């Protein structure tokens, strides 16, 4: 009998503390753990170093002033190329950024998961990634080729937040869409991982939903499981739901104007997750 790790989003976030290095799964505006991010916004946790293939997770946290430093290769809403809050925070000079190539981010997380100090990659050489990250070092191959490569430092995380389609109570989690993104890697690179999911299932149900390789995250790296239906909203969580493009467009529009953004946060983000869901349902009806 394995431990029951189920908890609420607020309970999960209560285990985080200010100043932590936090990895956030998903990619762009796809399968982001938005319910956990919303819980984070309700908490006092701040001064975070955030590692993310960035989307509105980065946008919301940056807009709320919770990010001290961002480690990323981009922040995008996919169908809207530029994440408006990320853009504004950078243009105000408020966001400290470690700008890496996408592959560097992957290898930095992999190094952390493998407990290595760094991994060598070709990416970065010759680019201004080396200029804006003066701490990056190169390493010379000890073999006959003698190649000089970038030593991507391990991106060890204090905690990771990810959202998957299904999970059991002990923390095994399953993705049912076409792309796992790097959610397993985020969990393995973190001291503790919190997994939210569309639906908590009994272990026996996994096999009916997908082949064994869809079991992306294993319980040994998971500290908490949160059932959060619609927990990736407004990002996509296929096959459960597509991105809510109308809502995302409203988010981006509001983000462009401080007054509208105050209204948006007052309307959607001032209450709990149930409040968010009913406000979104009302929004959807208005748009139907």
């Amino acid at each position, binding site marked *: 009998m394995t431990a029951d790790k189920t908890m609420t989003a607020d309970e999960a976030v209560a285990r985080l503390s200010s100043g932590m290095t936090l990895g956030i799964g998903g990619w762009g505006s796809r399968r982001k753990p938005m319910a956990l991010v919303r819980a984070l916004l309700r908490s006092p946790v701040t001064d975070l170093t955030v590692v993310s*293939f960035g989307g509105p997770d980065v946008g919301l946290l940056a807009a709320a002033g919770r990010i001290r430093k961002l480690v*990323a290769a981009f922040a995008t809403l996919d169908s809207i*190329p530029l994440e408006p809050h990320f853009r504004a925070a*950078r243009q*105000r000079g408020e966001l400290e950024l470690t700008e890496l190539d*996408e592959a560097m981010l992957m290898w930095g997380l992999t190094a952390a998961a493998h407990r290595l100090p760094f991994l060598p990659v*070709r990416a970065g050489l*010759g680019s201004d990634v080396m200029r804006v990250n003066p701490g990056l070092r190169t390493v010379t191959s000890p073999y006959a080729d003698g*190649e*000089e490569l970038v030593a991507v430092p391990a991106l060890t995380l204090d905690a990771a937040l990810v959202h998957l389609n299904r999970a059991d109570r002990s923390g095994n989690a399953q993705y049912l869409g076409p792309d796992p993104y790097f959610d397993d890697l985020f969990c393995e690179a973190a001291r503790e991982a919190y997994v939210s999911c569309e639906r908590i299932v009994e272990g026996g149900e996994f096999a009916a939903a997908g082949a064994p390789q869809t079991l992306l995250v294993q319980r040994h790296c998971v500290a908490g499981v949160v059932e959060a239906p619609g927990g990736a909203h407004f990002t996509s969580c296929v096959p459960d739901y597509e991105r809510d493009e109308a809502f995302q467009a409203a988010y981006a529009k509001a983000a462009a104007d401080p007054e509208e953004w105050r209204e948006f946060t007052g309307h959607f983000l001032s209450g709990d997750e149930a409040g968010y869901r009913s406000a979104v349902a009302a929004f959807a009806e208005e748009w139907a």
Partner: protein
Amino acid sequence: MNADRAEICVVACAEAWRGSGEVLASPMGVIPTIGARLARLTFAPELLLTDGEALLMGDVPALGSASRVTEGWLPYRRHLALVAGGRRHVMMGASQLDRHGNQNISCIGDWKRPARQLLGVRGAPANTLNNPTSYWIPRHSPRVLVERVDMVSGVGYDRAAAAGPSATRFHRIVRVVTDLAVLDFETPDRTMRVRSLHPGVSADELRDATGFPLDVPDGVPRTRTPSAAELRLIREVVDPAGLRDREVRR
């Protein structure tokens, strides 16, 4: 049938993938996407194409239509591995591009506090060092074709050479396709040259639209026009909705 500028650009993009081999064609932008699909339907059936997410398409659907045949799985982790292995030819956009082929998609102005934050470097540093890279510039202007880019995201020939043999080992910029011309780096010093001018574009027009001195030799070829069969494929099969006209002015 007379081809318009967008259709000429589609074919110029398609031509970039000619002879690339059995590799993933990664087009970014509407015209390159149409170009890659046209190449696969005609002279480069061996190309691999994604649906824009994690699946490799076994068919060639029209833009905006779903693929019905999946021939492979390419989630981001495998896509990044594919880049490093080099079996890919990407055509990226560029907010700025210089004569050496250095590209910027990250930000405009001082990186510490940019005047305009753009996408971030994304995968451009890895792309340019690992697999053949081309660029698509839908609006050739001195603001895009610049003397010096603000943040080197994609690595050009001079920067790769300065970074050493690990950087040059797999570095190759194949082609730059713009709405005015096709350019490449097939010069002794690996700086940009005009490969062909699109029909209707004058040498002066091209020079004026370029933010660095660009030699346009007399007798520079004209970009080839699409064949009747290619035009039919573009108009009826790949882009019946005419999305190409939103990216390139008529």
